[in-house]
């Protein structure tokens, strides 16, 4: 078992080193994520602290422009917010929401899928029907409805603070079904195999069988889906924030920054909207390039 996965891994590594786009994407993504995580250490300013914003320094162009000023490398927005800091913090929010919602979806999807596939029967039926229902509602719609309704349920003073948690919940709700279905299908196949039957005869606890034996066999398709969903989650968050139902202006994500910048599309303040757009695209493109490569690399048919 272990040796098998090692070979697979080294296979993957080999394919990775041969794919230029995957390597570039991985490097870019690693840089984006690292700078985002360490944003508080790198960024010249904390863009969420209103007291740090100096409006007399608003609308400065990037540093290479004559009117640019140090340390506002990418210029400032209309509130005097340093664009570089805002983008780093915004990426941080996007990445954290992306990772958190994929992780939560995985947790929910894997456990429910395993349970449904392993035990079958009523539990299976119920869970899968619920999944059907969720799948018959477009993702973006679920995300919008959940974030609106949950926010409405929160007391006003928690609405801003809880925004990111609400978004994670909203994205997770539609995300878990896909994992659950994949794992369930695989579990049903594995369950009938001899080693599982043998383990059951030996009275190995169900949980142990599921986690130790069945789960590892489902990981390949899950990995691909998780990577691509990470990109989707970032896009969904950005879209909600762009529509004004995601992150509030006080803690802007990339989507919020684009929404605000969009108001200044014709004002000549191009840096307010261009840089967040570029960053968002770079982030999602690199995630998707990696996901695409991963899918091809793990697909035996295409080898």
């Amino acid at each position, binding site marked *: 078992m272990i040796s098998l996965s090692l070979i697979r891994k080294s296979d993957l590594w080999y394919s990775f080193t041969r794919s230029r786009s995957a390597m570039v994407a991985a490097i870019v993504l690693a840089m984006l994520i690292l700078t985002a995580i360490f944003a508080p250490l790198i960024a010249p300013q904390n863009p969420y602290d209103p007291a740090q914003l100096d409006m007399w320094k608003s609308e400065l162009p990037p540093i290479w422009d004559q009117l640019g000023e140090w340390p506002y490398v990418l210029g400032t927005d209309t509130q005097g917010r340093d664009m570089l800091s805002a983008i780093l913090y915004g990426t941080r929010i996007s990445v954290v929401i992306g990772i958190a919602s994929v992780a939560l979806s995985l947790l929910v999807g894997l456990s429910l899928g395993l349970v449904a596939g392993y035990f079958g029967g009523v539990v299976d039926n119920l869970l899968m029907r619920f999944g059907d*229902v969720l799948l018959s509602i*477009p993702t973006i719609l679920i995300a919008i409805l959940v974030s609106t309704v949950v926010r409405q349920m929160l007391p006003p003073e928690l609405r801003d603070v809880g925004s990111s948690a609400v978004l994670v919940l909203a994205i997770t709700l539609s995300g878990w079904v896909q994992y659950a279905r994949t794992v369930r299908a695989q579990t049903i196949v594995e369950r009938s195999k001899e080693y599982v039957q043998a383990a059951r005869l030996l009275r190995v606890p169900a949980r142990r069988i599921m986690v130790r034996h069945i789960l590892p066999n489902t990981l390949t398709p899950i990995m691909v889906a998780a990577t691509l969903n990470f*990109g989707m989650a970032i896009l969904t968050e950005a879209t909600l924030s*762009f*529509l004004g139902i995601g992150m509030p202006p006080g803690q802007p994500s990339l989507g919020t920054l684009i929404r605000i910048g969009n108001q200044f*599309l014709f004002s000549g303040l191009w840096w307010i909207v261009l840089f967040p757009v570029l960053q968002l695209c770079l982030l*999602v*493109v690199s*995630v998707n390039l990696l996901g695409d490569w991963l899918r091809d690399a793990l697909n035996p048919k295409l080898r």
Partner: protein
Amino acid sequence: MLVFIIKRIANAAMVMLAVALLAFLIFRLAGDPVELMANEQMSQADRDNLREKLGLNDNFATQYARFVVNAAQGNFGISYRNNQEVLGLIAERFPATMELVLVATFISLVVGIPMGVITAIQRGKWYTESLQFLSIIGVSLPSFVVGILLILVFSVSLGWAPAFGRGDVVDFGWWSTGLLTSSGRAALILPAIALSLYQITLIMRLVRAEMLEVLRSDFVKFARARGIPRWRIHFRHALRNCLMPVVTMTAMNIGALIAFALITETVFQWPGMGMLFIQAVTFIDIPVMAAYLCIVSFIFVFLNTLVDIAYAVIDPRLRAR
């Protein structure tokens, strides 16, 4: 056969009931309807009356049953925001969205299928590689960014096509179409392109994958051995074999596309259901939100069921499943 169809329809009905339950839950969770509807001058007695009139004193199951019965008859209640029949509000904007979605679907087929074929049969060439790469950018670009870029380039800089609205429309009964006026067609161009971009990449990838599969199959190898010209194999035989999944996916994706259109509609101020929905979300207009959810899901489930049944009619083997 009949059993299968009945089963499939029953299944769809169950899913719709569950969607209705979700829609109903939105009502229950988003706060007290009386508080959302009442103005501040309303007295407690008025509030109690309203509560009774809305049937909020009944138990959960009764209220849910009433909601389902009403919704099935197209009665989604009155909008909190402008006191109009929700169904009327949506019906008014339904044609705009459908037109946008259908035209976008058309564009995605016309562009996506050839691109898919080319990338499959010309593997390894520089232009197929770049098409592949472009398709990844296509799925990665947020559609609001695409919309903004299209407006900037084609509307403001070049002045080729309008940036907002629907132009002039012609009414046919309750349906209104922009396809018959020049301004209506012009206004449709940019939003339709923006909406189709994602769908193009999906179709292109699907066609490519299916083509690769078919090209490896025995009958293609056999055909090649028989000396049938290459283009004939690709387009006559291979492509025909992958069109089925493309049609299926296109049909099933229309529901998703309707929902997705809300972003495009917002960017282009397209007066469709999506814009109505986004406005309803901003104003916490629950009846409109719930109705939109039900209608979009209904279209989705309806098309899915239709596709399933159509498949069963074409290929009896699937009925066993």
